[in-house]
């Protein structure tokens, strides 16, 4: 795990950092089933349980469907609940993901992004969490190990906020972030404990003085009202994410917002991209800036709810935008991030030209030269005012 320990800096893999965050949060219940590349999260965390470092009830189940089911039961009973998974594991949770969000249970899930079968593949892309994008879970995407660690701690506060009460998913790239060691700064156990506070559900199944029913049927006379409430809570979560990100910054010096803007102020072209590949893109931005080219990058941190107004505002002055997806929606019309960003820009008076590029599926490397290639295409779009190729795969 830790390889250095100087001045509060520690070398940790993404998975190890998440396990430490979970230890510091010390949830009441954790139900999980191991799957690559998120296995080490629960592996490390189960050591903490075995060593008595946490008070968590660890439930080892026979599948991810059962893991999420146990999380739902425990959360409805009033517990603070966490789990972790990847790829097929998240896919097997699908049915239960909607139940967790519909029942408004603030469960926290770490999803280490990995491609979905078939063909079977254990490496990074975003097809798992993007498939769950409409499941009613808050989704935070993380560029680095530090951000994954910080996001998990903030996710607890966001999900449990009285105006939100929705489950939250923290996503980061399989192997690239989960297994590579980065130098990060951990918070003190006490700091985390104080920041997340104690979870007290205002109503819960084990409250025998106030019996209640969870998961009752709701027919055409009321179903839509419950969904409307859920939708409003999701839309409102955006402000809570900003608030908590600011509070985190005030207390610990690292402020987080809805997205991360990189050299966008005067940019004429920009790449919009999630997670670790944003780091690669920033290197390309720096190289091009040295040549005097006005380029920038935007990395959404919050994907659900989608901060469409803020992103449209941030890109309003840009002439051409490339949205890069590490997943294909198989819709014949680009990836999910492309569709959201393009739709968000529709109401802008001056709309930038936008195109979709799909990259890095199944862990294919996305290199600086790939980002440079996309910026080259963007430059051409600005020159001609035309998008020659609306959508295509790169890194083939």
């Amino acid at each position: 795990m830790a390889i250095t320990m100087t001045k509060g800096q520690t070398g940790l893999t993404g998975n190890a950092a998440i396990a430490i965050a979970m230890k510091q949060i010390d949830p009441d219940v954790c139900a999980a089933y191991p799957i690559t590349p998120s296995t080490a999260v629960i592996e490390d965390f189960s050591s903490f349980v075995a060593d008595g470092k946490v008070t968590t009830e660890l439930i080892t189940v026979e599948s991810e469907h059962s893991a999420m089911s146990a999380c739902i039961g425990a959360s409805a009973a009033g517990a603070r609940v966490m789990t972790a998974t990847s790829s097929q594991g998240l896919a097997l949770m699908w049915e239960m993901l909607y139940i967790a969000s519909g029942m408004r249970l603030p469960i926290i899930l770490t999803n280490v992004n990995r491609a979905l079968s078939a063909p079977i593949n254990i490496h990074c892309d975003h097809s798992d969490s993007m498939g769950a994008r409409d499941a009613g879970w808050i989704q935070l995407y993380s560029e680095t190990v530090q951000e994954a660690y910080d996001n998990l701690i903030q996710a607890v506060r966001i999900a449990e906020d009285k105006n939100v009460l929705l489950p939250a998913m923290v996503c980061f790239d399989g192997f690239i972030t989960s297994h590579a060691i980065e130098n990060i700064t951990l918070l003190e156990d006490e700091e985390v404990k104080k920041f997340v506070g104690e979870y007290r559900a205002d109503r819960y199944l084990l409250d025998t003085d106030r019996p209640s029913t969870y998961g009752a049927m709701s027919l055409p006379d009321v179903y839509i009202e419950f969904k409307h409430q859920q939708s409003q809570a999701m839309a409102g979560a955006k402000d809570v994410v900003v608030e908590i990100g600011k509070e985190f910054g005030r207390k610990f010096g690292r402020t987080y917002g809805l997205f991360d803007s990189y050299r966008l102020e005067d940019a004429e072209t920009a790449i919009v991209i999630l997670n670790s590949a944003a780091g690669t893109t920033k290197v390309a931005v720096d190289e091009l800036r040295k040549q005097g080219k006005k380029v920038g990058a935007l990395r959404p941190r919050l994907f659900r709810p989608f901060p469409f107004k803020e992103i449209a505002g941030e890109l309003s002055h840009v002439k051409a935008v490339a949205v890069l997806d590490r997943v294909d929606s198989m819709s014949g019309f680009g990836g999910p991030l492309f569709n959201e960003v393009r739709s968000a820009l529709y109401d802008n008076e001056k709309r930038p030209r936008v195109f979709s590029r799909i990259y890095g599926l199944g862990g294919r490397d996305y290199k600086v030269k790939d980002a440079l290639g996309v910026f080259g295409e963007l430059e051409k779009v600005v020159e001609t005012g035309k998008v020659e190729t609306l959508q295509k795969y790169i890194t083939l």
Partner: protein
Amino acid sequence: MENKKTGFPRGGVIEKGGTAHDYSTGGWRKLRPVVDKDRCTNCLICWVMCPDSAVIVEDGKMIGFDLEHCKGCGICAVECPDKVKAITMEEEA
């Protein structure tokens, strides 16, 4: 817990117990249980076995069925002891 604007409890939670009683399931019934009190020994096996708590008992005696909740499953008629067979299922008109 409750949303002030809509009055609907968050997450579809039912915030009190015993509400199944308010939901009439009798309309689902195709067969109606009929008891012959001349044969009935008040052993109350039907009351124990009824999945809908639709067998009415007063002072230790089975006095009939709650047809607002009886779904007509026929378990009472099957469970009524062979020597007694006081319950028969009849077609709903």
